[in-house]
């Protein structure tokens, strides 16, 4: 099993990010959750908060608005209306 998965962050006006990452945490409406490669299919709404993802040694943080996260086997899609870096 690959140890990275594709993380896509999209807003209504652009594709913000499309990268292979190792780890991601996002502010779900029922609490923060983390995703590693091979996560079960999962669909949740997101509340405003901080999203972090890890790629190699870098950890990046961005602030997102409310939105949705769709997790399928090797891919995570984040839909949000606004992103503040």
């Amino acid at each position, binding site marked *: 099993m690959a140890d990275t998965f594709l993380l896509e962050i*999209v807003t209504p006006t652009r*594709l913000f990010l499309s990268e292979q990452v190792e780890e991601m945490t996002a502010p779900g409406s*029922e609490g923060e959750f983390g995703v590693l490669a091979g996560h*079960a299919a*999962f669909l*949740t709404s997101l509340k405003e908060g901080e999203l972090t993802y890890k790629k190699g040694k870098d950890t990046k943080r961005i602030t997102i608005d409310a939105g949705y996260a769709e997790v*399928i086997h090797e891919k995570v899609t984040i*839909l949000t*209306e606004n992103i503040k870096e």
Partner: protein
Amino acid sequence: MPNLRDIKRRIKSVKSTQQITKAMKMVAAAKLKRAHDDITAARPYAQKMLDIMNSLASIAGHDAHPLLSKRGDNKIELVIITSDRGLCGGFNSNIVRAAEGFIASNAGRSGITLNLIGKKAKDYFKRRGLTIRQERPLGSGRPNYSTAAEIAKEIVDSYTKEIFDETYLVYSEFKSALSQKTVMQRLLPIEPPKEGEGAAEYIYEPSQEAILADILPKHIEVQTFRALLESSASEHGARMAAMDSATKNAKEMIEGLTLKYNRLRQAAITKELMEIIGGAEALKG
């Protein structure tokens, strides 16, 4: 018969008009490029949103949410998107005509209300004896998501309050720089997808119903935003084409006038020569 100076003045005036139309064409072309990029940029979000909504709605069925279920289609609301400014060929009149056609063919319904976006729609419909429920200009600059969200929210609220039972969007879809197509799209109630289409097995959080209830109004926002973007790109495309042909016409006109000017000038010179020769002959005799 116009004299030489009149023609010269005409040429000068047509030339300055041509300069304006040429500049407008360039500006429209630049804006069109940007509007087109905006449409492309908005696509992934809209597509993903649609995928998620479809998979949710197909599991949930028709009556899972008020925005999905039909209720005797009596009162209709038309959301008409035009531009704020003119000089874009048949762009606005095509949309207005399509809307008029729709209104005429639905005259039997118990009520049609209008929601006008763009100054041109307002200019046309304000004296037609129809109920204008909402109207707003587009404003300057590119369409932004928050405007679309505002419009959509108002529509969803009124729909929920049963002020109308169906909503249609009338706008111009961008095909290419040279062609636009007026489309009539049902916004509400949302057409549920066919059963079993793309229904993936998910773990839902908080719950399927809650996400669906949350995502349906978002879907309306996305649709409205897309319509605004398409309309904006179409407007610039139409303006570019209109200004291109105006520039061409001006060029033809200048050519015609220049020819006329030269002919007249030559005729005047010939006439003067004849007079001089005539005068010289007379002196000789």
